[in-house]
């Protein structure tokens, strides 16, 4: 438990991917089975433990802690579980600290009502950090937050496996993953999902930058729209059905209508799209935002008649029944997908159309249609390529639609972490206020300017800073910059009510006065129109 608590405490403080990979790999290398697999499940969200309610937690705390002192503690930490953990009085001579796996098994066996009764003996035996980790586990909050954990990389570092392979084996092997570690340490066979609807790492696409169409032989490639939705994997195997996000998160509960429609035995790759109007695949803007909100609310929003029922736009097949098709060329998989689609005729699903093109000029023409049709760009796929997870090898290419641009004004600059990291800039546009025009922030980005221009920009910021808050400088509202961006998304929690998608610094508008930069109304006009429910 102590090693797990130390790991959790460090992951909470660290968002850097390389550092998190090293921390996780080091723990997994050193901790014994089944603790390490239990830890992995707890951190990545795959541990099935009934949650102790806040009320039960408080009652537990008050069994040992004076109520007034506990309330002061709760107020100070801002968190009931942490206050209870830290304020729990030590019991000298208590039993040896429990192992993580023992705690997880005990909590699962105790069930929702019995868990609180199991906790005191463990709390007595642990140090403050251990108690905090224990109660995080018991309240279902042992995930460290921040960006997704680099589990695949950490597992790969453990055994010299390829990250995509390691991820597939991890998903195929239920907690506490004992067979997974045995395989990574070359003591056992590779775990396989068999007939279970496990997640398979998806095939990534390489992003093509710039306005020039790629030089592709039309005979070797197929083109599709790049849909503006959520990439999803639908796994219907052996009678069980699951829907996964591209990071492997199980989003089945948020989209029951899709699962219901999956009356076949296959694993499919596609894009979840909110439906706009009757049966028409829509995408983007408010509908997409609503779909994302549904992920947060799980099944709650999935009532029939909800503003945005979803459809699944299918474009690949990984398994047809028990047959693994991933080694087949795309053309063959596509034929199998079409056959399955014709056979099963699943409601709420569509086939992503393939777009005929006969050369670069034709691709450019198709790309030019993207914005008005609400597509993100073009997806270009080699006909002979197998379905390969892992690093994008160029067999799939996304050529995004042409960016929009806006003249915005620099407001703040935040120093990057480490000597080489670029600074992150916040840009705003003008908005009328009671005291005249003021700037309202619309995006923050470190992307775009390149090393030399980036340094010149930072020099300018140092010379024109008006205030400093730790690593952040507020600068004179005097620098107009052209920002390229893909779209304007609604953002109700932002002051501007909107934000730019994929903002990038294009160039400094040296000769242009800041006062002539864009106004908020200009961006509001570009907001995707709200869907039928909003």
């Amino acid at each position, binding site marked *: 438990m102590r090693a797990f608590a*130390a790991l959790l405490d460090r992951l909470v*403080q660290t968002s850097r991917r390389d550092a998190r990979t090293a921390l996780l790999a080091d723990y997994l290398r050193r901790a014994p089975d089944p603790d390490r697999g239990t830890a992995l499940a707890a951190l990545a969200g795959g541990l099935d433990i009934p949650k102790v309610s806040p009320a039960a937690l408080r009652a537990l705390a008050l069994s040992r802690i*004076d109520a007034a002192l506990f309330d002061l503690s709760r107020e100070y930490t801002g968190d009931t579980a942490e206050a209870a953990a*830290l304020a729990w009085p030590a019991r000298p001579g208590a039993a040896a600290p429990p192992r993580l796996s023992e705690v997880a098994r005990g909590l699962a066996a105790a069930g929702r009502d019995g868990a609180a009764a199991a906790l005191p003996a463990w709390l007595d035996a642990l*140090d403050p950090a251990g108690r905090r980790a224990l109660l995080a586990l018991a309240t279902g909050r042992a995930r460290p937050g921040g960006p997704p954990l680099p589990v695949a990389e950490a597992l790969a570092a453990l055994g010299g496996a390829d990250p995509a392979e390691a991820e597939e084996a991890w998903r195929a092997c239920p907690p506490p993953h004992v067979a997974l570690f045995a395989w990574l340490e070359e003591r056992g066979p590779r775990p396989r999902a068999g007939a279970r609807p496990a997640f398979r790492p998806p095939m990534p696409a390489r992003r093509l930058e710039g306005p020039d169409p790629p030089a592709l032989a039309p005979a070797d490639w197929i083109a599709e729209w790049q849909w503006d939705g959520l990439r999803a994997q639908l796994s219907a195997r052996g009678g069980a059905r699951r829907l996964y996000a591209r990071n492997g998160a199980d989003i089945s509960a948020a989209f029951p209508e899709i699962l219901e429609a999956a009356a076949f035995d296959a694993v499919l790759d596609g894009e979840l799209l909110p439906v706009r109007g009757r049966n028409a695949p829509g995408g983007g803007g408010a509908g997409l935002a609503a779909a994302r909100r549904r992920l947060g609310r799980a099944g709650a929003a999935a009532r029939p008649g909800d503003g945005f029922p979803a459809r699944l736009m299918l474009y690949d097949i990984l398994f047809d029944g028990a047959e693994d098709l991933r080694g087949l060329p795309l053309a063959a998989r596509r034929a199998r997908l079409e056959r399955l689609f014709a056979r099963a005729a699943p409601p709420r699903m569509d086939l992503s159309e393939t777009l005929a093109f006969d050369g670069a000029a034709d691709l450019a023409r198709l790309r030019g249609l993207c914005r008005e049709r609400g597509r993100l760009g073009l997806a270009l796929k080699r006909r002979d390529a197998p379905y390969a997870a892992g690093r994008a090898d160029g067999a799939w290419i996304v050529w995004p639609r042409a960016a929009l641009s806006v003249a915005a004004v620099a407001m703040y600059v935040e120093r990057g972490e*480490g000597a080489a990291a670029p600074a992150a800039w916040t840009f705003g546009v003008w908005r009328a206020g009671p005291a005249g025009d003021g700037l309202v922030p619309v995006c923050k980005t470190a992307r775009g300017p390149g090393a030399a221009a980036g340094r010149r920009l930072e020099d300018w910021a140092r010379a024109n800073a008006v205030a400093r808050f730790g690593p952040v400088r507020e600068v004179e509202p005097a620098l107009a910059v052209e920002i390229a961006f893909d779209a304007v998304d609604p953002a109700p929690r932002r002051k501007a009510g909107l934000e730019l998608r994929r903002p990038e610094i294009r160039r400094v508008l040296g000769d242009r006065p800041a006062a002539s930069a864009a106004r908020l109304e200009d961006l509001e006009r570009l907001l995707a129109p709200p869907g039928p429910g909003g």
Partner: protein
Amino acid sequence: MSGPAAESWIRVRPRGLYVVPGDFYIDPSAGVDTAVVTHGHGDHLRPGHRRVLATAETLAIMDVRLPRKRGPERRALAYGERIGIGDATVRLAPAGHVLGSAQVVVEHRGTRVVVSGDYKRRPDPTCPPFEPVPCDVFVTEATFGLPVFRHPDAAGEIARLLDSLRLFPDRAHVVGVYALGKAQRIAALLRAAGYDRPIRLHPALGPLFDLYRRCGVELGPTEPVAAAAAGGRGGALAGEVVLAPPPSLGEDWARRLADPLAVAASGWMGTRRRARGAGELPLVISDHADWDELLRTFREVGAPEIWATHGREDAIVRAATAEGLRARPLSSIGAGPAA
């Protein structure tokens, strides 16, 4: 011990705790005629006094930290040495907080008041341990006067730092520390854990390390950070420990280090909220008594009356009251009509 109630001869004045029969202040916040100073931290040792009584170590720290010109008249008191000031007697007892730190034991006509200053109860090789002195009134600090403050074993926290050095040998580990006390304690803890590489010091720390050494504290080899970090634009001191005051971590020298990994060392690091933004490795290492140690100390000094200051008085007053003590915040002393 039964003399006049302490409240009748100890007052809380705007400049601090004032002992009427001796006409002196303890740790006054601004210049006074006579000050008894518990230790060298900036919130206890202020400039501008005419006369200062403190341990020889604290006076030496004063010479390093405060400008020397027009320095005060000084009187060094060894631990245990008694001195009469007016109608009061004073002696100093070790507080275990930092080098030279002392409790002030004041007696007047048979009543004994102990003013703890800052104190801790854990072993610390850089200063003598806290000595419980039986008294009628114990004026206690309460910096960590909430039950959520339960400091773990410092050796275990140092083990986490060593573990990080093992795991990230390509990164300079920069520990943000107070220049007085915490810096030297971290060095001593590292040595106790068997770490024998030179520890790199921010320039602000050098003079106090020298002073600790002159006072006989073993800290092992140290080197100024400047030399190593001066050249080039990065990559210096990979896998080494650098000690520096926290505000300096954003300075340019820190950007020349090899991918610096920020470590914090403070009793405040025990809660997530305070640890947030404190770097990748917050260590809970404190030079103050934690909650359990505050209450244990009250029992050991046996004082029927506790006056609490410097922290969360409400919680510690409540807990001490529950143990049958007469406890209140120091700020209430002499503030209203005498009870």
